[in-house]
């Protein structure tokens, strides 16, 4: 259990440390922001609208594919632990599992769904 405690401690100490360092800039170089200094930079001219928008991601089919593969990984971790003990049968099982999933990639690639929509 102390392993996870150490991981958590390292996480929070780094996080807080960085936030404190960032706050330190107030003492080194206090900022006073003005309207022209706040204009988002695209080359010297001001934008018309906010940049935040209903952003049209061009890879949305890929994100769906990722969801399936993320699930696959969940199965693979415990499989890796018992693999050698289970022997050949585990290899065959995983082989079939992965080949089935590779068909998914093959289909997606053939439908050109990995390219930008």
């Amino acid at each position, binding site marked *: *259990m102390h392993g*996870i*405690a150490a991981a*958590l401690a390292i996480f929070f100490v780094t996080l807080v440390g960085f936030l404190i360092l960032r706050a330190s800039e107030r003492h080194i170089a206090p900022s006073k922001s003005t309207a022209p200094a706040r204009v988002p930079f695209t080359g010297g001219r001001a934008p018309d609208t*906010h940049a*935040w*928008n*209903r*952003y*049209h*991601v061009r890879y*949305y*089919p890929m*994100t*769906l*594919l*990722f*969801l*399936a593969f*993320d*699930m*696959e*990984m*969940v*199965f693979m*971790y*415990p*499989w*890796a*632990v*018992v*693999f050698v003990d*289970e022997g050949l*049968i*585990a290899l065959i*099982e*995983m082989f*079939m*599992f992965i080949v*089935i*999933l590779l*068909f*998914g990639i093959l*289909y*997606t690639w*053939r*439908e*050109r*769904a990995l*390219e930008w*929509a």
Partner: protein
Amino acid sequence: MILNVTFWAFSALAVFSGWRVFRADSMVRAAYWLLLSFAAVGIILVLLKAEFLGLILILMMGGEMTIMAVFMVAFMMNPAGLNPMTMVHRNSVAIVAGVVSFLAIAALGLFARFPVARAPAGVDPTRKLGVELLGNSMLVFQTAGVTLLAAMIAAIAISSARGRYGDADQGSVEPDQMVTAPAGDVAAAAAHDPAPVISPGVHQ
């Protein structure tokens, strides 16, 4: 002691960030508050000695909440919450549903008789899980595989605008199934064109 404090701290964090999901104006913030809530639950799972499940929950939710943020930003008006908005609709129904399900789960937790089976010391839950999954039958793995494949193909078929043989909304047809007409005989080709079968109304 420390274990208890940690448990309560992360429980509080999970509830707090779960509540913030519904108070956030920005879709990105809402998604990542939810991620924080999941991560806190993941840590709680780790504290409950389900280390693998806890960590895998965080691992998966990192990608998945990002994908959720992407879609929420794409489809919501005012995705960044520049104009104030509320994530809550039909307040009274929501409150009733929330209270009822909370009470139901709480009652389940308090009154249900859970089987008491102390795990022997030194057992590795990840290994147990692996044996359970692989075990004596291939069913679990192969069912999962086929289900995931079906999900992938369905997701791509529905979401992708383009296909091998042309754009989806044009009714893409495999070249083998196209009736080849003599050059110039456009009318004949149109008569045999299988496109209307797929997308009726093209010739209307």
